[in-house]
C-alpha cells in the first residue's frame, strides 16, 4: 500500500499512523444497535480479509488454523502488537467498538506489515460489539486466550450491566474458550478489579491461576506494560489490579 500523495495521518518515516488524527472519545455505547456488518456465523469470518498473506483464498477448510487469541476492547492495539511477535504462529484478533480507534489499529498493522516483511501477518482488528456478537466470530472452544485490559469501568451502579465482565457474559466467554484456556483481566480501578475477580471466582467454569503459574506466564508481565493505558497508569504511579483465570469443566 504505497501512497503517492503525502497523507498527513501517517508518519512519513515510520509509515505508522499518527494518533492525533484518530482521536476519539473514550466511550462508545455498547447498547446501541449495530450498523457494522456482523458475520452470520464463525465459518463466515473472512480470514483472507484479516490475514491475506496466510489465507490468500477466501475458502477455508476445517483443518485450517483458527484465531486463538482475542483482545476484547483492544484500544490502540498495544498488546496485540507485542503478542504478534511473541507468538508468530498464532492467529490473533482485536475487537473494538469505536470506529476511529479501529481504523487506527488497522493502519498501524498495515504499516508494520510493510516495514517488517513477513511479520505481523498473524494479527488483525475488527470493529464489533463483543458483548453481543462474540459467538458470531468464534466457535465453541476455539480460543486459548482472551484479554480484557483496562475495560470501561462504568462507575454508576445503574451502568454496571454495561461492564464487559459480568456473570452472564462469562457464560459466553466460557463457551468460546477451550478447556484450559486463559482469561486475563486488568484494571487500574480498584472497585472494578474487585468486581471482575468476584465474577470470575463465582463462575463455575473458571478457576484462578496459582502464583507459580502467574510467575511462569510471560504474558502476565505484558498486561501492565504493553498497552497505552497500562503505560499511562505506570507514568502516573498508579496501582493495577489483575485477575487471571483458567477455563475448567464445571463439576457436575
Amino acid at each position: 500500500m504505497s501512497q503517492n500523495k503525502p497523507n498527513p495521518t501517517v508518519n512519513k518515516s515510520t509509515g505508522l499512523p499518527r494518533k492525533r488524527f484518530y482521536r476519539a472519545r473514550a466511550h462508545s455505547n455498547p447498547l446501541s444497535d449495530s450498523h457494522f456488518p456482523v458475520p452470520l456465523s464463525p465459518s463466515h469470518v473472512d480470514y483472507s480479509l484479516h490475514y491475506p498473506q496466510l489465507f490468500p483464498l477466501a475458502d477455508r477448510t476445517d483443518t485450517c488454523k483458527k484465531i486463538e487469541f482475542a483482545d476484547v476492547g483492544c484500544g490502540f492495539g498495544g498488546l496485540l502488537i507485542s503478542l504478534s511477535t511473541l507468538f508468530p504462529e498464532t492467529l490473533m484478533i482485536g475487537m473494538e467498538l469505536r470506529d476511529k480507534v479501529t481504523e487506527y489499529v488497522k493502519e498501524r498493522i498495515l504499516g508494520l506489515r510493510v516495514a517488517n516483511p513477513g511479520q505481523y501477518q498473524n494479527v488483525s482488528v475488527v470493529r464489533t460489539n463483543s458483548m453481543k456478537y462474540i459467538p458470531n466470530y468464534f466457535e465453541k472452544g476455539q480460543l486459548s486466550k482472551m484479554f480484557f485490559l483496562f475495560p470501561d469501568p462504568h462507575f454508576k451502579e445503574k451502568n454496571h450491566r454495561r461492564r464487559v465482565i459480568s456473570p452472564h457474559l462469562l457464560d459466553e466467554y466460557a463457551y468460546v474458550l477451550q478447556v484450559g484456556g486463559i482469561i486475563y483481566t486488568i484494571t487500574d480501578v480498584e472497585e472494578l478489579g474487585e468486581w471482575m475477580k468476584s465474577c470470575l471466582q463465582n463462575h463455575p467454569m473458571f478457576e484462578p491461576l496459582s502464583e507459580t503459574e502467574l510467575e511462569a506466564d510471560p504474558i502476565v508481565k505484558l498486561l501492565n506494560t504493553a498497552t497505552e493505558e497500562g503505560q499511562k497508569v505506570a507514568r502516573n504511579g498508579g496501582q493495577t489490579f489483575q485477575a487471571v483465570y483458567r477455563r475448567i469443566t464445571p463439576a457436575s
Partner: protein
Amino acid sequence: MEGAEMEEARVEDREHDHNNTQEDAQIEESEQKNKDAEVAPALVSVHPTQNSVAVAVGSDLRVFNLLDNCAVNLVDESGGASHNDSIRCIKYGTNGKLFVSAGDDKLFKVWSTDCWRCISTVVSEKRLSAVAISNDGLHVCFADKFGVVWVVDLAGFDGSEASLDKKAAPLLSHYCSIITSLEFSLDGRFIVSADRDSKIRVTVFPSKPLDGAHEIQSFCLGHTEFVSCLAFISSPDSPQGILVSGGGDSTVRLWDIISGSLLDTCEVGAKVGQVESDATEGNCSIITGICTILDCTLIAVAIQSLRGIMLLACNLPSRTLSVTKLVSIIGENFVPTSLGSSISGGLLWMVTGASKFRGPDISPCSRVKGISGFNKNSPDSSEQEPVVLADTELPGGVKLLEKLQGSMLIDEKVFLVAADAVKTAMCNLLNKKQYSDEKREFRKRTRNDKKKKQ
C-alpha cells in the same frame, strides 16, 4: 438529494430554530413508533390433551374448558383483572398441570389447570416477552425485554390450593436483546432461547437452576433477521428433538441443537410470494408463529399478511423441510396472529386479533378458527384436504367462541386493521433501526465531541 447537506448548512446558520423543529419531529416520530410497538397480538394456547383452550387478547385472559364444555372463571387473589396490561406470552406445560401468562404489566403468573387458580405471581422489573415450563413441571421460566431469562422453582406445589410466594433467580442472559421465544428441549436437558439479534442459544438446564445456567451447549446461527418463534419436533434419533425456528427473514429453519448446526432452511416467504398473487409488498413475510401438529409430523406456519397457514413437513431421515401445502382461509379476512395445538391432536387452533390500538375506538378483539383434516401419511394427496372448520364444527362450538372471542358479532374490517397494527408493532419492536450516515451524524450533533468549535 442534497437535502441533507443543505440541512446541515442551515443548521449552522440558525442553529436554535432548526434544531428544535427537527428534534420535535423526531421525538414525535419515535413516540408514535413506541405507541405502535405497544399493540399486542392475540394469542392462543392449547392444553396438551385438549382439555381446554386459552386465548389472550390485550390484558384479558380467556379460557374455555372443553372437557366440561363451559367457560372458565379464573381465580386470582388480586380480584379484578389478572393482568393490567397486554399479555405477551402464554403457555401450557407438557404435563398439562400448569399454565403461565406474562406481559407488559411486568407480572408473571403461574396457574393450576385443575382449579384455574393463580398459584403464584412474580413481579419483574422489566416487561416480559417469553415464557416456558419445564417438562417435569418443577420449574417455570420467563424472559424480559432486556434479555434476561429468569427461573422460578415450584417445589412444594403438589396441586393443593395453597399459593406460593416465589422469587425468581436469573438463569441466563442475551446481552441487551429482546428474547422472543423460550423452549425446553423434548428431554428437558436443554433450554433454548431466541433473540432479536438473530441468535438462538442452547443452554444445558442444570440440576440446580437457581444457581444459573452457565454451560452453553451451542449457538444456532444462521437467521439473518430476528428469530420470532421456536418449536421442537420429535425424532427417533435424537431424544432432545429437532429444533424448528421461524424468523423475520421469512425462513423456517431446522437445527441440531447439540452441535448448533443448521440442517435445512425453507424460504417460506418466497413460496408465499409464488402462490399468492395479491401478496404483499417486499418483506412482509415475517414468520409470526409455528406449531407442530399430529404428533409433530407436520408444521403449521403463520406468516404476516397471509390469510391462512403454510404447512411444512419434516423428512426425518434426511432432516430436511419441504412445503406441502398452503391452506387459505377464504371468505373471511383472517390473518392468524397465533397458532396452537394439542400434542397428538389433529386440530390446529388459530386466533387473530389485537389489543387496543389507535384509530377509531376499537376495543381488544379476537376471532378463533380451527383447521382439521391433516393427513400425516400423504400430506400431498388430494384424498383428504385440510379443511377450515365452520364455527359450529369447532369443539366447544358457539359456546367456546362466545367465551374466547368475547362476542359472536364480528366486524371483519376490524380484523384487517388489527392484523396491520400487529404487523407494524412487530416491525417496530424487532427490526433494527437503520440510519443513513447523514441521519446518524445529525443524531450525534449535541455530543460534545461533535459540536462545532466556536
